[in-house]
């Protein structure tokens, strides 16, 4: 457990010292989503109708931007080798790195969501559910992305491969995430969608450490 916290602490400190990377995802999220009202026109009903889908898709792309760095820096400077040979199981190290990734990427996106809600004329009930759904959904994005990042590690131009691998796997999170907000906006219960999101999160919490660690061992051979 101590090693787990140490890895999180180190990754957070690294992110804090290289703030540009963390800002990049949030700024991309806000700016890209803000383009849609300009492109579509300021029709409040239309904007409110498409808002959940757009916010989710843009959040997904913003996370995608930051995925390549997840293991690459450690791979290139030899830290990954040392992590593999440390007493901490590699699966735990992977989970720690993913958690740190979510804290520096997913959490800022959630914090920026109210800004977009205003931009898209989303009401308060919708915003609450949106943030709850993102709280469950953005960790899924980090977890699924970690598998993609680990698998493409040894490959040439791995950064280009990650979206191809990961985007299809983001579809469940996207469907339930948008479904929850849509239900809330139309006065239905958002709970079933949120529960399904939580289920996907639990499944990925198990799969990601195992799959990523196996892929990393392969990359380090």
């Amino acid at each position, binding site marked *: 457990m101590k090693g787990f916290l140490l890895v999180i602490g180190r990754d957070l400190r690294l992110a804090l*010292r290289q703030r540009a990377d963390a800002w990049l995802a949030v700024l991309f999220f806000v700016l890209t989503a803000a383009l849609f009202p300009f492109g579509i026109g300021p029709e409040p009903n239309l904007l409110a109708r498409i808002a959940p889908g757009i916010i989710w898709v843009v959040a997904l792309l913003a996370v995608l931007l930051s995925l390549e760095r997840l293991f690459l820096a450690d791979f290139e*400077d*030899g830290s990954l*080798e040392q992590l*593999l*040979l440390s*007493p901490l*199981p590699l699966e735990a190290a992977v989970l720690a790195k993913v958690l740190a990734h979510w804290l520096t990427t997913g959490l800022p996106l959630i914090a920026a969501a109210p800004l977009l809600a205003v931009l898209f004329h989303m009401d308060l009930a919708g915003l609450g559910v949106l943030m709850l759904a993102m709280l469950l959904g953005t960790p899924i994005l980090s977890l699924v992305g970690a598998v993609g990042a680990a698998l493409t590690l040894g490959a040439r131009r791995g950064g280009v491969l990650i979206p191809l691998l990961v985007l299809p796997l983001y579809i469940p999170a996207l469907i339930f995430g948008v479904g929850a907000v849509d239900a809330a906006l139309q006065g239905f219960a958002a709970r079933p969608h949120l529960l399904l999101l939580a289920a996907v999160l639990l499944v990925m919490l198990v799969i990601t450490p195992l799959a990523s660690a196996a892929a990393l061992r392969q990359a380090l*051979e």
Partner: protein
Amino acid sequence: MALFEGRSLHCRRGGRDVFAALDFALPAGGALLLTGPNGSGKSSLLRLMAGLLKPAGGALLWDGRPIAEAPEEHARRLHYLGHLDAVKPVLSVTENLQFWAALRGTTKALGGSLDAALERFALTDLAAVPGRLLSSGQRRRLALARLVAAPAELWLLDEPSVGLDHASVGRLAAAIAEHRASGGRVVVATHTALDLGDPIPLSLDSLAPPPLPEMVW
């Protein structure tokens, strides 16, 4: 005393045989010196010993027990120093060292052993300097300080003296001698002169497997 040994090891990389039928035995307090031309498989052998690579044949045993049975236990008793220094550019020398030492579980006497490790490789004056400002020799010394900061029984050193100045090579030799005196063992692959006392030589030159049949004309 436990023996670290390899029996008829066979290494294959990228479909090419690197070496075959390699045997070695390393008792406590011993040093194994790997020699051989570039590409003879010194680094591959060290990665095999660390458990980063799996042998295509043969076995590595610690005290008669295959290391593949308990890879995490094996990882805990070794330090592997490869070609990469694992130094983070935005962390200071102390922070870099502290992370790896703490991960190895030396909790209590950490402050003291960190300072001693820095002192050992003359890094005390650089303690607050971020990794990106270090020269390649200084980065190497920081990687070597990791060996001393957290104790481990087996040191696997791949070209440890690359980029080191004369005085630092002497410090490395002294650290290895002290490690061996306390019962530790060390495997070194190097091309430069490094005073190891009385190492067991292991030449990988003659261990290249016979050429494949289709290559014989």
